């Protein structure tokens, strides 16, 4: 039971996107549609879980001085796996996410968790932490993708909610909409944290 807190930590209290404000680049870039959020979130979660696992397992073998370099090799390995798998099985999603798949390497959430958590913990908590952070990230970017897709395109998960020729607030799927939506989401999150004392 006590292990569960490692998992729930990343979901809300330390949500990587909305509270820690890490991994901002993919959060802003890929959230033009809800489905992209799920795809990007799944890819990041995979890398996060396996890099946390491997780093926690190897923590006694990695010399302290070269630990960052070692972490980057481990992370880059899993990113390459995700990259090749997505290219082969989900070519459409791969084309949409584009450059941001290889850029998972420099997503600060992953290196951040490796440095702050995985290298000091055992394998099981590290996996749970990776899973919680990954799912928290996925939820946050899917939420943001949904908001932008509904407002900007009048649809959710490609299902049209308004008439085909209805006017939508196009700006929300363009770059400015990303910044503004994200700004308001963080503000709401701050407010909720203060209100309910979480």
């Amino acid at each position, binding site marked *: 039971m006590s292990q569960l807190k490692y998992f729930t930590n990343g979901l809300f209290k330390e949500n990587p996107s909305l509270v820690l404000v890490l991994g901002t680049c993919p959060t802003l870039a890929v959230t033009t549609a809800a489905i992209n959020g799920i795809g990007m979130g799944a890819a990041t979660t995979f890398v996060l879980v396996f890099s946390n696992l491997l780093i926690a397992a190897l923590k006694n073998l990695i010399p302290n001085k070269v630990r960052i370099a070692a972490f980057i090799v481990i992370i*880059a390995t899993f990113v390459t796996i995700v990259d090749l798998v997505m290219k082969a099985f989900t070519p459409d999603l791969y084309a949409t996410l584009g450059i941001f798949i290889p850029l998972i390497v420099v997503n600060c959430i992953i290196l951040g968790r490796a440095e702050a958590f995985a290298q000091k913990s055992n394998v099981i908590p590290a996996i749970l932490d990776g899973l919680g952070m990954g799912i928290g990230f996925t939820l946050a970017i899917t939420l943001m993708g949904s908001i932008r897709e509904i407002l900007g395109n009048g649809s959710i998960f490609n299902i049209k909610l308004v008439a085909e020729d209805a006017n939508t607030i196009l700006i929300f799927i363009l770059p*400015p909409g*990303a*910044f503004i939506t*994200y*700004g308001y989401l*963080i*503000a709401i999150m701050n407010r909720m944290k203060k209100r309910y004392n979480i």
Partner: protein
Amino acid sequence: MEIIGIIILALLVNNVVLAQFLGICPFLGVSQKVSTSIGMGAAVVFVMALANLVTYLIQYFILIPLHIEFMQTITFIFIIAFLVQVVEIILKKAAPSLYQALGIYLPLITTNCAVLGIAILAVQKNYTLVESVIYASAIAVGFTLALILMAGIREQMENTGYPSGMKGFPISLIIAGLLSLAFMGFAGLV
């Protein structure tokens, strides 16, 4: 003519921060003061141009001849990390005054996803060596431009009242959104 097109596209139309969402972390983190953002910008221009030069050579003379293109991500991130270290050491020895000015920004650049992103993009766009370096420099100047604009606005915001719940990231992101809106006006330029 083509080169001018690349420069305008990279600098204004597809601004790296405001349209392509690369390098958001330093954009939000190091934009409190105009003076520090100039320092950061100069360091990014330097490293980005150099990184594109080296990654181009690696891509076309090592990865492609050996058919190990899938190693691109892992090789490039190492090259960039290594390059930043080398630049830091050389600057410290050869130009101490420049090092004083740029020193603290250099380590931050390894985690700037714009450097890796632009190196990969330049390869994807099949640029030649010269085009690749010019592209990277223009992108980096665009990054600096966005950073300085942002810092200027944030300095003014210090004395302005806005809801306390918007303090910090939310207000910065909304300013960035408005800047990005303004930059969309350049879209018809090329």
